[in-house]
């Protein structure tokens, strides 16, 4: 399985051509309406004083999403921003802070971040959520932050997001253990007689 990454950690990651030139850096990650995959990135210039760029990067132009850079074939794949942003206004901002409910109707927390798979798929595999006490027992002082898998079917309405109830049995505290849990979660679903 490819490395998992929190979408927020992608901000400031350099966008590098296969020719070895850094042409921009990631400003925001844009998802499709079902929060199923990345549709692209908005960009800013590289360096402290550079602002947002007019151009953005549609996912179709991404060669690979890696740990240290977003690779593209060349600067020709960058598109005028409205192409990517039209979808962004429909969705981004909506997933973050959305309430997370299971399909059995239990509220388990609110979305803090979106977890994506590196490589070429651009798939959203889960969410980092501020967990309610119903999900994680522990410190009273602060809420727990955990990762939950997304499940194949997921409903997103804008203010709430519904995940399968069994996904809550595969929560993890950090990304490496979440990767292992995800494998178990998908294996479990395959075997489950449904």
């Amino acid at each position: 399985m490819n490395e998992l990454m929190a979408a927020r950690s992608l901000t400031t990651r350099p966008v590098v051509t296969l020719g070895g030139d850094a042409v921009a850096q990631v400003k925001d990650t844009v998802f499709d309406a079902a929060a199923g995959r990345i549709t692209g990135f908005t960009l800013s210039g590289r360096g402290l004083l550079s602002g947002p760029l007019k151009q953005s990067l549609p996912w179709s132009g991404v060669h690979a999403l890696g740990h240290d850079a977003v690779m593209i074939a060349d600067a020709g794949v960058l598109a005028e921003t409205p192409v990517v942003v039209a979808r962004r206004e429909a969705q981004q901002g909506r997933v973050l802070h959305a309430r997370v409910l299971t399909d059995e109707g239990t509220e388990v927390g609110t979305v803090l971040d979106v977890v994506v798979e590196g490589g070429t798929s651009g798939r959203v595999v889960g969410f980092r959520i501020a967990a309610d006490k119903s999900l994680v027992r522990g410190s009273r002082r602060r809420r727990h932050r955990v990762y939950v898998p997304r499940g194949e079917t997921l409903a997103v309405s804008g203010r709430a997001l519904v995940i399968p109830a069994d996904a809550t049995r595969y929560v993890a505290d950090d990304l490496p253990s979440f990767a292992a849990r995800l494998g178990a979660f998908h294996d479990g679903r395959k075997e489950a007689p449904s």
Partner: protein
Amino acid sequence: MMLFSQTRGLPVLTLTEAEEIGVLRSLTVDARSGVVTHVRVRGRHARKETVLAWGALHAVGPDAVLVRSVAAPAEAPPHHELPGLRILAETGDQLGTVQDVVFEPETGRIEAVRTVQGDLPADRLLGLGEYALVVRAG
């Protein structure tokens, strides 16, 4: 077989007059074809940098570089210094930095890029820019 680090500082002399035009500063590489295309020479006193095409060289030896002509090449590509540059796999993962480059002094052909983790053969090189040397995933 020779290393880029061994060429740095070699005196550069003309073949016909044995006149020293300076010392070798750096080698410019075309990553896609995997060859050294130009050499950069700095004058000992003038501190002026001269760019010479690889074809203008007569020999790169262990103690000196001999050149046939000091005429400036028609066009010099932008120079990206390889030693010290970060290496990115095409997957977007960093593979360390370039420690040194192994090349054939007779032909200018790059054999391998030396890193802390080992040598990367030249056929993995994809591109060389101001930010990184990009290599095929191994």
